[in-house]
């Protein structure tokens, strides 16, 4: 469980340093596009289903252009679906009015809104994961800084990112030691956890002191500078504009209906 969490973290992080067209796009463009995508998807009303379908184009494009392993991301999406599923499943229970009969089988409105929640869930979560799979975390922080998020929060994010891997690995060693010496649930209780977390905490504070010494030794005087300059390229502009235009089209026009009608006329 712990090992898997750590592995996933590291793997996703490693993906974000690949070098594909999508990875090379400016982090700002990707961040803005992702947020616009999520807001558009979520803005659809409760019972929307067909309007959401064209939006699958975005994750599919990112998956394929960014060379991101589909199975890995889908597994992660499934893993966190509990809360949305848990809340959404009440819809068919409380909203039982039939909306439509499908060859005699009544479909409750609750099922439609439930399906809508699950589609939205899939689209929003996938897009967040795809953002981090195609953009390095320092890149995202850089984008946030450029978008006006306070410096202190950015430094905090960067420091956190730097030491997550160090501390999670340290925690993993302690957890392994605990699990090796505990059988069944014995030894995995709160008391053990407290002394384990306490020890880890003290080591962390000591580490912070050493880091501070290292920072001072290199002339730290309160500011963490960011250096890597990002330049907006033509590709970034094209990417962002076409995303926004497509989002607008898909939101405001019934793409599925139009294609369906067209195909009916053909057949």
């Amino acid at each position, binding site marked *: 469980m712990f090992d898997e969490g750590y592995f996933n973290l590291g793997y996703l*992080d*490693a993906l974000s*340093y690949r070098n594909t067209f999508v990875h090379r796009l400016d982090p700002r463009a990707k961040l803005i596009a992702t947020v616009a995508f999520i807001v558009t998807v979520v803005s659809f009303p409760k019972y929307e289903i067909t309007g959401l379908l064209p939006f699958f184009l975005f994750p599919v494009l990112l998956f394929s252009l960014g060379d991101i392993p589909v199975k890995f991301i889908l597994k992660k999406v499934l893993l966190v679906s509990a809360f949305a599923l848990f809340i959404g499943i009440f819809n068919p229970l409380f909203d039982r009015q039939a909306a439509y009969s499908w060859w005699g089988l009544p479909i409750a409105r609750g099922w439609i809104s439930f399906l809508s929640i699950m589609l939205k869930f899939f689209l929003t979560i996938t897009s967040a994961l795809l953002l981090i799979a195609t953009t*390095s*975390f*320092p890149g995202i*922080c850089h984008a946030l800084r450029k978008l006006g998020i306070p410096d202190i929060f950015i430094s905090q994010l*960067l*420091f956190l*990112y*730097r*030491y997550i*891997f*160090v501390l999670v690995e340290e925690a993993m060693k302690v957890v392994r030691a605990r699990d090796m010496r505990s059988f069944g649930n014995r030894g995995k209780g709160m008391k053990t956890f407290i002394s384990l977390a306490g020890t880890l905490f003290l080591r962390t504070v000591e*580490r912070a002191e*050493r*880091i501070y*010494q*290292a*920072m*001072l*030794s*290199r*002339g*730290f*005087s309160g*500011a*963490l*500078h*960011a*250096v*890597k*300059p990002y330049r907006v390229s033509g590709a970034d502009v094209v990417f962002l504009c076409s995303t926004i235009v497509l989002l607008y089209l898909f939101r405001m026009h019934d793409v599925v209906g139009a294609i369906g009608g067209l195909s009916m006329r053909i057949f």
Partner: protein
Amino acid sequence: MSHHIVELQNVRYHYPDGTAALNGLSLRITHGESVGIVGANGAGKSTMLLHLNGSLMPSSGSITIGDLQLTAKTRKEIRKKVGMIFQNPEDQLFMPTVYDDVAFGPLNLGLGREKTAERVEEALRIVGCQGVRDRPPHHLSSGQKSAVAIASVIAMQPEILVMDEPASSLDPRSRRQLINLLNAFDHTKIVASHDLDFILETCERCIIVKDGRVMADGAAETVLSDKTLLEENNLELPLSLKNNPLTRYKGATMNDLDKLKHLIEHWKEHNKEHARTYREWAQKAASLGKMELAGVLGEIADETARIDKLFIRADSLLG
């Protein structure tokens, strides 16, 4: 006025809980020297190093770096001269990418972006890590981490490099690379380590510290081959000197005849095997069609066999 001098005079330091870590430690290091600091755990090595750039301030005594005496005021200036490389690269590399980390120091020195970029490239080139410029530190191997930690310090162009256990987390190959790297620097180097072989290979001078005082100070080869002295200080002979016939009897009186006897004993040992190996490879070269090479290798084998015989004769002459 001589520059780049490190001088500690009668330095004492007590930790806040009252434990005395340095008890009147004095030493003097001149420009371009490479000095190893050795001693058991708790001898005061790390505490001493932390004084060199004012991370700790002495309770009494004085520290002079170049022509600056260490005070709270001069501390910042001194940190530009003294580049400190800490034991654990994880603590040293605190920025999210290698580039940002190496650039941290130069930017704090007030250098502009362009100038900083030059310094970063240069430092990464020296340690051979240009390829990982945009990586986060947690993607690096331990050898790369320690190399980047050094780059992050040399990018500030310090005059003196101070290192605490630089080789402790390295595999043998990375350790070897680090030794070569350090030997290529002409900075003044001060290295504290338990790895006495590492000191032997990187330092000309060696200082033994015990109970916060200097116990011995001299040429690294002399200090580190003195078995008795080392053992008095909870240390032992470096591995590379353990099987060396010259040091095996160090400490006891040994006349030149004895020395020669041991040397010849040592020299005569492996020639036979070497000759056999050369001959085998001569045959292999022949089977590959490299006839001329095979001929030369055969001659080397013959010569070696002859040398072997000569050593055996020399040995018998000594009786």
